[in-house]
């Protein structure tokens, strides 16, 4: 600890970083191509997903595999609230939409908030029974939960339009919405984790019995963490739906949960900054690897474009990464100014590792 920065300096640096990021986003919004803006939006939404999953899985140690279900709830609820009434009539061909939804149309912000709240409420309802399970059993239960939501969406024609999905969703999501919500997500979850409440969540992750012996109400803490994670998953789902502008149950299959889990594990399960880094690398990396799917040439050998090739390469890269960097990029550490400062001072380099 001999080398650390003063709190006010750290605050100024953080503020400066936020301003710089904000300015870059502003610039991108003005100048960049639609494609780049889409990727930037996806990046922010993936951050929301990864950070909320990190709160549940990494910080509290609830191994949940049902994240896609909450994203689906957020996406469907917000869409049903923002879709114009006329569009709803056109979309719901097989069975008409049930009463309250077929009359409502509201702006994006309240729709997003309601989407988050519904997802959180659903999280609360399912948390109570499933949190009685531990470890693998909890993982299986939440996995089943996510699939259940998808199958309900597939069959509840009068609410979700079944397998046909919803289309022509107003494209409300822009850089400011997605990055604004990403900022809120990180701010809320990071300050929770930094508080003594967050320390209790970590204690539960490490040893639930010992946490109980400390007088921590383990169950209620887990529920709070699960519900908060579900809320942001729902908000992310709402943003995602209004970015892609068409949703159907297949978009929320199990692979969606895995995608988010990959981001979180890649960055280091248990680290919020890790989740942000993981989500960024995953989103941007996947785009850069698109090169592999178009024909390319190394020296004199011509490679034809193979669709899906980037997933193969990405998988191999992930396997290699996990072999050598088993706890992800950040492990359980957070990327703090102190850490960066240490990395740049010689003493840290000589020691080779960054200790507390």
């Amino acid at each position, binding site marked *: 600890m001999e080398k650390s920065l003063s709190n006010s300096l750290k605050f100024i640096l953080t503020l400066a970083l936020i301003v710089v990021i904000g300015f870059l986003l502003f610039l991108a919004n003005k100048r960049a191509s639609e494609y780049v803006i889409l990727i930037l939006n996806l990046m922010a939404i993936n951050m929301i997903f990864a950070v909320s999953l990190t709160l549940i899985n990494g910080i509290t140690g609830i191994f949940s595999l049902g994240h896609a279900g909450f994203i689906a709830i957020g996406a469907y609820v917000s869409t049903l609230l923002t879709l114009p009434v006329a569009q709803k009539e056109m979309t719901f061909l097989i069975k008409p939409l049930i009463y309250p939804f077929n009359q409502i149309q509201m702006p994006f912000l309240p729709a997003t908030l309601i989407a988050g709240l519904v997802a959180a409420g659903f999280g609360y309802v399912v948390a109570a029974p499933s949190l009685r399970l531990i470890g693998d059993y909890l993982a299986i239960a939440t996995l089943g939960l996510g699939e259940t939501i998808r199958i309900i969406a597939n069959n509840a024609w009068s609410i979700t339009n079944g397998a046909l999905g919803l289309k022509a969703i107003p494209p409300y999501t822009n850089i400011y919405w997605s990055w604004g919500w990403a900022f809120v997500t990180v701010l809320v979850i990071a300050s929770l984790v930094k508080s003594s409440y967050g320390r209790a969540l970590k204690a539960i992750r490490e040893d639930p019995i010992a946490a109980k012996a*400390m007088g921590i109400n383990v169950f209620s803490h887990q529920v709070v963490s699960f519900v908060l994670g579900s809320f942001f998953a729902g908000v992310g789902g709402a943003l995602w739906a209004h970015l892609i502008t068409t949703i159907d149950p297949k978009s929320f299959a199990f692979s969606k949960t895995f995608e988010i889990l990959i981001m979180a594990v890649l960055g280091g399960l248990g680290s919020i900054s890790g989740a942000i880094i993981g989500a960024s690398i995953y989103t941007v990396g996947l785009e850069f690897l698109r090169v592999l799917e178009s024909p390319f040439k190394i020296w004199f050998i011509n490679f034809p474009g193979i669709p899906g090739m980037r997933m193969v390469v990405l998988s191999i890269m992930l396997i290699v990464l996990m072999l050598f960097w088993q706890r992800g990029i950040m492990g359980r550490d957070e990327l703090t100014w102190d850490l960066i400062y240490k990395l740049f001072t010689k003493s840290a380099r000589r020691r080779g590792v960054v200790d507390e």
Partner: protein
Amino acid sequence: MNTQTMLKIEDLHVHYGSIHALKGISIEVETGQIVTLIGANGAGKTTTLQAITNLVRKSGGKVLFNGTDITHMATHHIINNGIALVPEGRRIFPNLTVHENLMMGAYARKDVEGIKKDLDWVLTLFPRLRERLKQLGGTLSGGEQQMLAVARGLMTRPKLLMLDEPSLGLAPLLVREVFQIIQKIREEGVTILLIEQNALAALKIADYGYVLETGRIVMQDTGQNLLKSDDVRKAYLGVAIT
């Protein structure tokens, strides 16, 4: 001696499936005393502590703490009522720092000043922890982890401290140190229920002792008398009777 009863356990039963682990035990802990519960592996010592704090379900019996019925109280309420449990095998939080581990002990407390004072107190009791405050709990040695576990228990500011095998896996020299500290803690006014396999060390410092055998209390007396008892000497102290 003060004869007020702090903890009173009446006819406590615990079942693990079809196994009847505790077959109706009754224990009393008087305020200010060190009471020890000794017995071999599988006698039900740990189960007793877990049943008191409701970490395992009781199938019968009653637990009174300072006159309040805590039989069916949730674990965290029991702890916040003034019972601290230092669980078997230390169970410290390996990825939290020593300081964070200690502060977890004070999690439910709101008195910032009191917490500060108690932190100072436990760091005086365990000076080695003071040097390691910023270190992760998992990087401590076994003995230091045990001290951290006890210190963390004390941070809840308990009226009753329940220790589950604090000597487990420690070198003899460290065992002596731990038992000296237990006596010191008692002098500060904390009542102690000590569970031990190391019967000799436990009985030496205990005011009163219970001997547990396959879920039943088979003997109870003052620590000194139990130390002299032939049965205890034969079964637990490995002394040949001449």
